[in-house]
């Protein structure tokens, strides 16, 4: 399998260049991140862009990495859940998911964390309905979403109060 239609290409993930060698050209970005680059944070749960577990940010857009051919992501800037916390520490969104009880089995969690970062970066003060709509492409089977809603609201409030303090 390794030799079929393969050639070397480079992906930029979390600010680092990764060379992908000896791969099958048909591999999805999700597969390459998980199986070739040692970044298992993005999860596969539906293979058709329905559940959002594989969400990554490509050039400031939140996308399902299961629907992207890895080789086609050359030249793009890719961010995964592993690249969100400063220096390996927890981001505010990650901390808030823990504080609010937004994590149970945790399988949907990385996709949610990426999607929430993307949401709050583009809309720092979302209404409850805006949060629900923005995250309606991410499925959680354990929590019923209530604790996740709380987690997002807590980050939004704390970011705004930090911003206000900074402005004083």
């Amino acid at each position, binding site marked *: 399998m390794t030799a079929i239609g393969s050639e070397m290409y480079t992906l930029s993930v979390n600010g680092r260049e990764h060379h992908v060698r000896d791969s099958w050209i048909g591999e999805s970005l999700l597969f390459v991140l998980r199986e070739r680059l040692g970044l298992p944070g993005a999860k596969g749960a539906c293979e058709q862009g329905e*559940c959002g577990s594989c969400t990554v940010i490509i050039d400031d857009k939140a996308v399902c990495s299961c629907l992207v051919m890895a080789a086609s992501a050359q030249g793009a800037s890719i961010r995964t859940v*592993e690249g969100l916390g400063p220096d390996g520490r927890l981001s505010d969104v990650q901390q808030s998911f823990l504080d*609010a009880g937004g994590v149970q089995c945790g*399988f949907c969690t990385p996709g949610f964390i990426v999607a929430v970062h993307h949401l709050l970066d583009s809309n720092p003060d979302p209404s409850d309905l805006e949060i*629900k709509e923005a995250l309606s492409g991410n499925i959680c089977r354990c929590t019923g979403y209530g604790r996740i809603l709380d987690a997002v609201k807590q980050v939004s409030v704390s970011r705004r109060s930090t911003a206000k303090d900074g402005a004083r």
Partner: protein
Amino acid sequence: MNVSVVSPPRSGTLGTNASRPDGVAKVQGGFAFSSDMWAENMLWGATLRSPHPFARIVSIDVSAAWKINGVEVIVTADDVPGLNAYGLIVQDQPVFAKVGDLVRYSGEPIAAVAADHPETCKRALEAIKVEYEVFNPVVDPEECIAGRAPEIHPHGNVYRHQRIVTGDLSVEGDVVVEGDYEIGMQDQAFLGLEAALAIPDSGGDGVELYIATQWLHEDRKQIAACLGLPEEKVRLVLGGVGGAFGAREDISLQVHTCLLALRTGRPVRIAYGREESFYGHVHRHPARIWMRHHATRDGRIVKIESRMVFDGGAYCSTSPAVLINGITHTQGPYKCDNAVVDGYAVRTNNPPCGAMRGFGVVQACYAHESQMDKLAAACGIDPVEIRLLNAMETGDKLITGQVVNSVAPVEECIRATAAIPLPPDLESDPDFRDIPGGSGRTADRSHIRRGIGWGVSIKNLMYSEGFDDYSTARCRISNGVVSVKFATAEVGQGFVMLAQQIARTVLGVDEVLLDTIDTQVGSAGSTSASRQTWMSGGAVNAACVAVRDKVLAHVAQYHDMDVANLAVDGTDIVDTRGSFRVAVADVISHLDIDETAEYHHPPTEDLDENGQGNCHVAFAFVAHRAVVDVDPELGLVKVVQVATAQDVGRVLNPLSCVGQVEGGIAQGLGLAVMEEIVVTNGKVRNPSFTDYLLPTFLDAPDVEAVFIEEFEPKSPLGAKGVGEPPCISVTPAIANAIRNATGRELPRVPIRPYDVCL
């Protein structure tokens, strides 16, 4: 003046929102789910499945597949060294269907391959040629009960037939209501797909399996029998579990993965995709239930008659136990002296069904709660009043003759739910995302009608009918470090957190290490039946108490004190009759203690031929009130709010309890209005998340929950399991709310748009 100062519980102990020990890894993406397991020199495995629901295998030709570069091994039934059958209650399901034998459902495994890449596996499966003699599938359970269907399996077409007969059957009610109800096939749809990594021992005479499962020891027993190995040669380690909800009770890829690893001498990982997952695990039983209630004119139930038919599909799994749960919960949380119930679980060529959260009680509850609304209407009584009037209490006798000796706060659950404020009326100009149809902008405000509905339920806890589903735990102190070990499957519910809370509380320490969850300690039983807080919580508690008693004995001896006066207070050991106080950490720094404990619940009995017997261990109760908006012309439904009060015994972790309640309600909503595996002529028509619809963030209702805390004296921690009740009566509550809004009978769930509007 009396001043009592109650200090708040210490952080991380019982009753607090302790943090999950796996939480940081889960939010950072580093937590190793079973699908993330990797080993040097690893191969990929994949499974060939029958497209036909009922056929005889004439031949299997694997020669073309062998020629594909990168294929390392192909295995079929001929390669199974031990028993070519598994199953939780009876071993009637083949590891692989054999040439000359039958395939009994669409998706039945026939062969497996191991290769260098998932794509190679896929091509190899496509190259295997299987010739079938295809038969018409048996898909109607009534044909099996009547004995008119061809025999699907040598074990017969009826898994179990059980009657319950009690009281005076000549009693007739002043008011009689009846209905035929149908419950569709629901999928557990955990997000973390089936995956496992098998690593063969260097001698090839044993294997280690990293697996997402609900019960490591039961898996090991079945795997070892199929592999023809002694159990000690099969070691299981829990791989991270991405949800379970009953779908991981049965064997799926365990034997296949081990077999490929043993045959190649290399590590093998199998990871299902979503479509294969629909074929790879059992589902919630579809059921047809007829029920007739007799009541006095003022609404008191005097007799219930019912017939329940559960379609178990092609293999037995837990069908006999699901049936018993269904029929023994016919009366719901209500008093009833006279009853006759006839229950069947049958074999068909439909997909195999087994455990899913609620385990038979979901189906029964949908019928009895639909009936309660009919009865209320027939008697001219409010739906809440009729439930209060009939509410069960501790000491009442069930239709099985068993006395409910659990705490039974049914009335409190109903009253507390009713006290939760209703949501505000729908605005005159609502946001389109808040109305039925949502972002589709399809519903018209002027057409929308609001409805309110109720559901109340009783759920048994732990395994039933004589099963001793004990749990084991080990607690150690070594060099001042406390560690706890158990084989309890952590599937997301948070037992890992609870185990630490127990140890911190009992031993007065802050740091508690958790050992690997594997088969190197005794069985914990299954993470099922709302049982692990009670059972494994009981085992961890007992092991920690045994260690604490040794620590106290050591202190008593060292300081020449009476051990009876010593107790753990916070992180200190104190003399309750004096001023002596010493830090636990100082005492244990030089101690070595190792205690293992088993926790068993009181024994239960089988049912006799009249369905009489003390078959259940304990019960929990819950009430749900649903508020819905419906567009009756388009058949669209928006569940606005679900209010609930749940009997939990004692809240051990508030955030975890809320998480279980909200999550269960979303699953119950799914069964009410969205989720169904559509099966026609034995074939699943929607095995994907595009076509099998799960509740999203916008579908989930606002949940208002309160907990009824009445310490359960039978439970080792005073707490009842919290996991299943939330998903049981919410489904009929939503259905009753839609009936209330539309005036339609709606005998079937899920309620589809065309059920409402046509």
